[in-house]
């Protein structure tokens, strides 16, 4: 390509590439959230709008233009939690945060599996959340701040029936217990089996909105599950939990979509 051709094409190419990057990240953001279905509908309407415009179907184009004008407010209301969360992610993303070292992670997971094992035996439930890339500060604020080293004794104490904090979730942030008694959004997924209670619903709800790794101990069945990106991996052994959590922490966001 000669210089004139390059000068003519570089601007549109750059603009389209930037638009592609932005649109891809918007779509990626909505993947795995409850707004995914609405997003699909909007894409179909957008493509239809461009088609009507090119084919000069003026009545249909006019109708869709009016529909889009009205739906801006509707979209703001429908996507309100996602927009808020997205802006919070932009502002809070821990770009310079140090990931946990391998031995620190191993030690933390060992404490967690010891706790879950003991809680299973004593027929007590638990909801333990490990922060990954998405900040969980909004959820930490709903609970009671702890800021302590991860230990099986502390986790067990939080989840004993007599503890005031046992009903909520325990959040681990940067390798430390940040808070307990935290409240999470419940999933409204119809796919979740009736045998799962509120604890599993909260775990799935949180996993649909963030990339947190959630460990759930079932009070009724005395088994341990991991919930990640809207997927539930149930009835796991201690070794399974450790290896799976390590695998998720090392992986990129799409782990949940590749497995199961």
């Amino acid at each position: 390509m000669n210089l004139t051709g390059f000068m003519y094409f570089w601007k549109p190419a750059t603009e389209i590439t930037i638009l592609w990057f932005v649109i891809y990240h918007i779509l990626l953001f909505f993947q795995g959230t409850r707004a995914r279905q609405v997003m699909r509908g909007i894409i179909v309407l957008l493509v239809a709008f461009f088609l009507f415009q090119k084919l000069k179907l003026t009545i249909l184009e006019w109708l869709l233009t009016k529909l889009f004008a009205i739906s801006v407010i509707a979209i703001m209301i429908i996507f309100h939690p996602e927009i808020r969360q997205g802006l919070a992610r932009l502002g809070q993303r821990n770009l310079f945060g140090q990931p946990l070292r391998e031995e620190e992670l191993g030690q933390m997971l060992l404490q967690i599996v010891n706790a879950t094992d003991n809680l299973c035996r004593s027929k007590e439930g638990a909801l333990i959340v490990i922060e990954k890339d998405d900040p969980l500060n909004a959820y930490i604020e709903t609970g009671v701040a702890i800021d302590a080293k991860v230990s099986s004794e502390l986790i067990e104490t939080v989840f004993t029936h007599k503890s005031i904090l046992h009903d909520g979730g325990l959040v681990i942030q940067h390798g430390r217990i940040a808070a307990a008694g935290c409240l999470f959004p419940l999933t409204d997924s119809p796919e979740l089996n009736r045998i799962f209670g509120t604890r599993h619903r909260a775990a799935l709800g949180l996993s649909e909105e963030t990339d947190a790794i959630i460990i759930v101990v079932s009070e009724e069945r005395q088994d341990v599950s991991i919930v990640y990106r809207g997927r539930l991996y149930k009835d796991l052994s201690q070794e399974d939990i450790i290896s799976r959590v390590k695998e998720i922490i090392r992986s990129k966001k799409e782990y949940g979509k590749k497995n199961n």
Partner: protein
Amino acid sequence: MAKKIINFGNQLRHWIMSHPWLKLIALILAILVWFYVKDEINRFNY
């Protein structure tokens, strides 16, 4: 150097393999939006 090249290759493969449909849809939408905005700018002679 060799390790760097392998890592770059893996990263590129991972980037291509992850969400290919999403990338295609995003590219189509980006092209459509670009032409739409160009038409609008030409129409109103900004």
